Every structure is written in structure tokens, then in C-alpha cells.
């Protein structure tokens, strides 16, 4: 008799939360540790709860609603939806993160609402971000979110896993954003549909927790349900002082069964750019270098963290934004904003010509704070560049790392940032 095969991180976390031996392909009803919604999705979840006749959430300490997508409100319709969310918070005891707090995918881990080993769902597709923290987190719609808020449970199809083993030292001026863009270009926008990703290997070990979050954030851009990583000493150190719950890290078994495996050596990788109008339309920067731009944006749940602002500030220190370019910066949270001020990054960026806006999602999702004009090109650190994404169907959005954006806003055209890193890695 042979022992049953080992399990992936996804299979282990879903097994533990469903109380069964869950394998890829099984459907389980599992307990969730946390449920989140944002202002684009929570109003429909609140309506679904009302239609269900549910007046309470399963545990007010395990539900949070974040006002980040149109924050502060640009129009009265949005204001009314925000009011609904605040009233829901008062009525149920669910936590409300209001205007100025920041982007949901920064706030949920930053405040210790999730810890390694958790299962959580969020009414936002980029909920996969916390996979970098060894949390099985996935985006769901508002009605699924409502069901989870009501019952503390949700049904899941246990995904197969696609594993990436990443090795080699990233060259100076090349970042985790370039890695995930490269992967999106490699496997395509539906390359991992219905699957979980597992990222592992020495190149992941070498990355900061923030850089890892950039990669897991974009798992959905290849159709994946989650973008998981192991928790190491860096992960556990990151959680110190963030909340009271104890991490329960989950490792994949050495004999876990993977649907697909990829091994990539990153030591020769160059900066990558996703061209309009799809995230998998990726090319090495040389192919788009010189493309004129009228706006640059550093921020979002992908690249609005302290390290990202530091990279941009490092390039822009003592330099100025090109006169024909608007440069918009949105720290991902109030805490990051404060830390970036303390580090001098905000001073540097504003002196260089940046317009710093309230922590939130606005420019990325086209609600406010930087809608481009017809025919304009934008270089952004966001995760999506669909036609119309930034609020104008006649604009063109390019995606790159914070370094690529910072280098580009200086020259007014898409620019290879590596020249700012000559003489060694930062």
C-alpha cells in the first residue's frame, strides 16, 4: 500500500478549514478566518444580506469594509454608498476603514486581520495579495462575500497548483514587478485559470515581504485563484506587532502533486512593461523605450508600499519631473504615508514635482485623482491596463515597476531605469 501523495499549500489550508482531507478537484465548505469588502462591492453585499434576511455578521471582529476605491467621494452617488457602508458598520459592529486609511489589500494584513495559515475571502479580485503572507486569500463577488459574512463559511473548489521555482539574483534595477509581468507574458491572461500558484525558490527567499506581495497581487492577472508562498523568518518578523493572532505557517509537502511546474532563472531578466490594453501584452523595456508619456502613477495594492515609494524617491532625489508630465503618487495606507514622510520620501517626491493624493485606489480604477485625456499615454505601477481602466477609453496605459515609472517621468518617455542603479544593487 502506498501512502497518499503529499499536499500543496492550497490543499493543506483548505483541508484544515473544511475539516476534511481535501484534494485538488474536491468541493468543500470551509470556515473562513476573515471577510473583506470595498466600496465598489460592499453595497451589493449589504443588499444581498438584506435580501437573505440576515441582520448580523457571523463575527464582527472578522469582517471589515474598506472605503478605498472612490475615496474621498468624488460625487454624491458614491457618497450615498459610503453612507450605507458606515451605517452597516454601526449596525453590525463590522470594522469600517474610512477615507484616508488606505487600500484594502494593505490594511487587512497591516492591521493583523490575517496571519499565515489563514483562509480569507474578499470582495475584490486582488484579494490574492495575501498569498505572499502564506494566507489562502481569494477574490469573490458580493453575494459570495455576503454568504461568508452571514455564515463564516464559503464553498470552494480545491484548486490544482502551478508551481514556480525562481532562482538567480535579480539584476540591479529589476524588481519583483518585472518578474510577475514576465510571468504574465509567459503564460498569458488565462494561463492559470482555476489554479493556485505557488512561488518558491532562492529568488523569492531573497525578496522583501513587500516585493513578494507585488507578485501574489497579480496572480489574478493570469486567472489564478491564489498566489501562495511559504512563510519564512521575514514573513513572521513582518507580522510582529500587527495584531494578536498567532501565525500557523503552512508548508507544501515535498511530494505534493503539481499540475504544472516552471523553473525560471531571473539573473538575466530586464525591466518588463505591459503594453495597452492587456496585462499579458508584455515586452522587454527596450521595445517600448522612448514612447512619450503624459502621466506617471506610483501607488496601488501592487506597488504603493514603503519600499516602492523609496525606490521612486531614490531615483527622483535631486531631479525633476518632466514639464509635460503629471506625476501622481498614492501611498497604499496612512501608515505607509507616515513612514514615507519620516523617511523623507514624500518630501523628495513632492520637491521633484509629484502630486501626492489620499491613500486609495482612485487613479488605478478610473474613479478620480488622475483620469487621463484622449490619446494620452500613462505609465503606472498598477496591475491592470485594460482599455478604459483609468477612466478614459481613449487613453493608453503601460505597466511597469516603480523604478521604471520614476525614470520615465523624469524624461517624459518610457525609460529603462537601470542607469540609475549602475554601480551595484540598491
Amino acid at each position: 500500500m502506498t501512502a497518499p501523495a503529499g499536499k500543496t499549500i492550497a490543499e493543506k489550508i483548505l483541508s484544515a478549514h473544511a475539516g476534511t482531507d481535501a484534494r485538488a478537484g474536491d468541493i468543500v465548505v470551509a470556515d473562513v478566518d476573515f471577510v473583506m469588502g470595498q466600496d465598489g462591492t460592499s453595497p451589493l453585499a449589504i443588499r444581498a444580506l438584506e435580501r437573505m434576511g440576515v441582520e448580523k455578521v457571523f463575527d464582527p471582529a472578522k469582517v471589515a469594509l474598506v472605503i478605498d476605491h472612490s475615496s474621498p467621494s468624488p460625487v454624491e452617488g458614491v457618497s450615498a454608498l459610503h453612507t450605507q457602508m458606515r451605517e452597516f458598520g454601526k449596525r453590525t459592529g463590522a470594522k469600517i476603514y474610512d477615507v484616508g486609511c488606505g487600500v484594502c489589500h494593505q490594511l487587512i494584513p497591516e492591521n493583523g486581520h490575517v496571519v499565515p495559515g489563514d483562509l480569507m475571502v474578499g470582495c475584490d479580485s486582488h484579494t490574492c495579495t495575501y498569498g505572499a503572507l502564506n494566507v489562502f486569500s481569494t477574490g469573490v463577488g458580493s453575494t459570495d462575500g455576503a454568504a461568508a459574512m452571514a455564515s463564516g463559511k464559503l464553498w470552494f473548489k480545491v484548486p490544482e497548483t502551478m508551481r514556480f521555482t525562481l532562482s538567480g539574483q535579480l539584476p540591479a534595477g529589476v524588481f519583483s514587478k518585472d518578474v510577475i509581468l514576465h510571468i504574465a507574458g509567459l503564460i498569458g491572461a488565462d494561463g492559470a485559470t482555476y489554479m493556485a500558484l505557488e512561488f518558491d525558490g532562492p529568488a523569492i527567499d531573497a525578496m522583501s515581504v513587500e516585493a513578494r506581495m507585488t507578485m501574489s497581487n497579480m496572480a489574478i492577472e493570469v486567472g489564478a485563484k491564489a498566489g501562495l508562498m511559504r512563510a519564512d523568518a521575514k514573513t513572521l518578523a513582518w507580522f510582529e506587532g500587527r495584531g494578536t493572532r498567532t501565525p500557523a505557517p503552512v508548508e507544501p509537502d515535498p511530494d505534493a502533486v503539481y499540475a504544472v511546474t516552471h523553473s525560471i532563472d531571473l539573473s538575466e531578466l530586464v525591466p518588463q512593461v505591459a503594453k495597452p490594453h492587456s496585462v499579458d501584452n508584455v515586452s522587454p523595456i527596450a521595445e517600448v523605450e522612448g514612447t512619450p508619456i503624459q502621466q506617471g502613477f506610483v501607488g496601488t495594492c501592487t506597488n504603493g508600499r514603503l519600499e516602492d515609494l523609496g525606490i521612486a524617491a531614490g531615483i527622483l532625489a535631486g531631479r525633476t519631473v518632466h514639464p509635460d508630465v503629471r506625476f501622481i503618487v498614492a501611498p497604499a495606507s496612512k501608515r505607509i504615508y507616515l513612514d514615507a514622510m519620516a523617511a523623507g520620501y514624500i518630501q523628495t517626491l513632492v520637491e521633484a514635482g509629484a502630486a501626492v493624493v489620499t491613500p486609495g485606489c482612485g487613479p488605478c480604477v478610473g474613479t478620480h485623482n488622475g483620469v487621463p485625456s484622449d490619446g494620452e499615454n500613462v505609465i503606472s505601477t498598477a496591475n491592470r491596463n485594460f482599455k478604459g481602466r483609468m477612466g478614459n477609453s481613449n487613453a493608453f496605459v503601460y505597466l511597469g515597476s516603480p523604478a521604471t515609472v520614476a525614470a520615465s517621468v523624469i524624461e517624459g518617455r518610457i525609460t529603462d531605469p537601470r542607469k540609475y542603479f549602475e554601480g551595484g544593487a540598491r
Partner: protein
Amino acid sequence: MKLTARAFKYGSDINTDYIISGKYKFKSNDMEAMAVHAMEELDPDYYAKVSPEGGFLVAGTNFGMGSSREQAPLVLIHSNTKAVLAKSFARIFYRNAINTGLPVVECDTDLMDEGDELEVDLEAGIVRDLTKGTDIPFPPLPPVMATLLADGGLVEHFKKHGGFAL
């Protein structure tokens, strides 16, 4: 359940921003009002063409990729889209469609053309192209999803059972 309507055909990788743009969906919870903007980025006339008599949205692979917005299936329902037929679906859209009561059919759509009269038999798992006289089989929904759709969506399932009964 058998549904009959004309095919309105589009391509692959249709994302939820194209189904309903963020610039509309963040402002309102009124799906009737938002439905006139359904599919606007790809076809500004979608609502005008589909809503009077109803229609099937026929697409290629990876339909509904991108954001988790449930407004996407809802505006399709409110534009009188009877079902979406595609070669494959993005995961979150697929769940949202079932949860809100929009039938989704994963089948080979290559042979269907714009304007074809189609009959979708959800129980039998057959799309009949009445214009061409061809039958295209499709695998039935997984039992969990069939239960949810039969109950009229996830809200009705919860009302009926007081929680998950899957």
C-alpha cells in the same frame, strides 16, 4: 430549462471592465440604469441590440476576466442577456453568474455566428444552432452550482436553507 434567442458574438479575454466600466459601477447600485452601459467598451450598441428581444452573449476563451464586480453579470441580466456561452470563463465571473442567476455555458463557440438562432437546453447539456442545424454538447454544471442555480441563486439558497446546504 430551454432558452431560445439570437447569438451576439464577441471575442476572447473580455474583461469585467468592458462588461461594465468602473466609471459607472462605483457610482450607483441601480442595475437598470447601469445596464445601458453593458459591454459599452466593445460595442456601444449592445443594450440597444439585445434588450428588446433578449439574446445570448457568445464569446471565446476567458470570458469575464479581471475584477470581482458582481455588477458584471447583473448588468447582463438587466440588458436581457439570457445566458453567456463561451469556450472558457474566468473563475470569479463564473461564480458570480451562478450566484446571481445568469446561466453560463462552457462550450465550443467557434461554429456559432452572429445572428444565429440558438436554443440552450441546460438540463440536456445541448446548444442547438437552429440556423445551422447543428447540436453542440456541453458538460453539465457541477452539482453544487446546479443546486445554487436551481434554487434561484445564492441569496435564495440561503433564504431556503438558512445557510449552505450543499
